[in-house]
């Protein structure tokens, strides 16, 4: 029941997107693909898809690199300060988004990055890196420190140990973090509204405007695609981890 409540808003987008009418409405027995056809033939919508995709992938790559490095650094150095540093790095998750948005706005103006890809990627990366920090730290907590000692004992310098022993062992956490980072950026709207204007027009941004300015059912079609991509990303990660589990099982 609760689950239904959670998914209902998402599911409503599906019938609405199939309405033959020119305004947001539930279809009454007659369905049409016209809004999807419009969505995929409109240069504006297509460009928003591409922009969101570029920003989300870049964010995922950067946030994963930074978050993983931070997690490993904090795992290595166990001093009384490392927990403070960790709490500090997790702040973006705790601070209300609207405040982060204003902060980014003020920060990006002097940098000249307002309304640019770089600005959005930077902001999304700051928001997403803590997610990676969390997932990778969880993997590291399960990592047997004796493996690192074994690698060093066998003559491997720190970097080799990192690449050949530590990273392969925490790969699931890195993948999960990358996925979360991608999804965070892919449907981020609050910060995006503050720091983009005309040049960069992401998918959620265009949907937001679509709802405010007219009641074009194309927004519903876009929502369906947005959700589908998110679900797709989850499905890919589920299949990957399932395959890993299965090969592990076969090996046993």
């Amino acid at each position, binding site marked *: 029941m609760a689950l239904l409540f959670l998914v209902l808003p998402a599911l409503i987008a599906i019938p609405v997107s199939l309405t033959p009418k020119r305004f947001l409405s539930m279809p009454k027995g007659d369905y049409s693909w016209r809004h999807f056809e419009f969505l995929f033939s409109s240069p504006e919508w297509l460009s928003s898809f591409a922009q969101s995709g570029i920003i989300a992938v870049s964010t995922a790559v950067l946030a994963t690199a930074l978050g993983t490095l931070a997690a490993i650094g904090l795992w290595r150095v166990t001093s009384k300060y490392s927990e403070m540093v960790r709490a500090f790095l997790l702040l973006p998750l705790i601070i209300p988004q609207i405040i982060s948005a204003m902060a980014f706005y003020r920060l990006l103006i002097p940098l000249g990055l307002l309304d640019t890809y770089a600005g959005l990627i930077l902001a999304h990366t700051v928001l997403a890196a803590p997610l990676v920090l969390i997932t990778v730290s969880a993997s590291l907590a399960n990592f047997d420190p004796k493996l690192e000692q074994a*690698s*060093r*004992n*066998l*003559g*491997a310098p720190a970097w080799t140990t990192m690449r*050949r022993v530590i990273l392969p*062992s925490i790969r699931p956490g890195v993948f999960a973090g990358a996925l979360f980072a991608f999804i965070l950026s892919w449907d981020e709207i609050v910060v995006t509204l503050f720091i983009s204007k005309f040049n960069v027009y992401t998918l959620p941004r265009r949907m937001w405007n679509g709802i405010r300015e007219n009641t074009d059912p194309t927004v519903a079609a876009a929502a369906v695609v947005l959700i589908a991509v998110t679900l797709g990303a989850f499905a890919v990660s589920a299949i990957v981890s399932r395959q890993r589990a299965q090969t*592990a099982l076969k*090996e046993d």
Partner: protein
Amino acid sequence: MREAASDAKSGGLTLSGLTKHFGSFTAVDNVDLDIQRGEFLTLLGPSGSGKTTLLMMIAGFLDITAGDILLDGRSIRDVPAERRNFGMVFQGYALFPHMTVRDNIGYALDVRKRPRAEIAARVDEMLDLVQLTEFGHRKPGQLSGGQQQRVALARALAFAPPVLLLDEPLGALDKKLRIEVQDQLKDIHQRVGTTFVYVTHDQEEALSMSDRIVIMQQGRIEQLGTPNELYEHPRTRFAAGFLGKSNFLTMPDGTYALRPEKIDIAPGGQMNGTARLTGTIRGITYFGAVQKLMVAVEGRDDIEVDVDSWRNPHALREGQPVDLGWSDTAAVRLEDT
């Protein structure tokens, strides 16, 4: 192989005044020890006596608080773990789970950038040494405990280290397998000629495998010697009680340790005047090959006497009065009382 050529001339370790503090706690306390090249030396001691700490300092994973470690006369205090070239078999093995057995064994040569063909040949050789030729392409998770243990050994020996450190390598195996692997380990030690520093808290393992044993207690060396020396001539109460069993007899001139199997026992009055003590059998425990008799002696602690079951010449029973006797050399006078 380069190391293989050099290791015959290398592998003598000297610990001098080696000390490790954790805060105000002293885990290893001023240990002086000369480990001979090619020797099988066992560190034996109860839990918390500092065995692992000592080994980790030799391996380079723990800083030294005071003292020094010398390899063939040269200090290695400032050499980082990855450049000490000591093999190590970790408790729990620490095999790399995502690599095959072959990749695990070849790892040390691989990170030393040896040619592929050389690595493959050496891995084959090591697989043969530990009798796992069939298993090279499996992952560690697909092996039994005993097989994993042998992979860990092969991995640690693959780069022909002058010294091999082993921290309770058989701790996770069941008793029968332990004895089997003990024999293999001894055999491998003889074949490779590497110095083995072996940590255990199993006294039988220590007695049966070692050239020399170091008994440790509270971070100090309690006694050092060959298994036979330690068993026959324990110097302290702790050594006598920890390695094998002992009865402790208080005599006018000090305390003596007396092994239960060195005591003769006969029904009361049948020892023709050579009896040293008389008592009553309070309990008999049957262990197959031997029976342990607890004898209550007036004015003393109970004395344990081990008798070979097949002998049991007098069909001794509980409650029976008995004479106890032993030869002059059987009782060892302890120094610490």
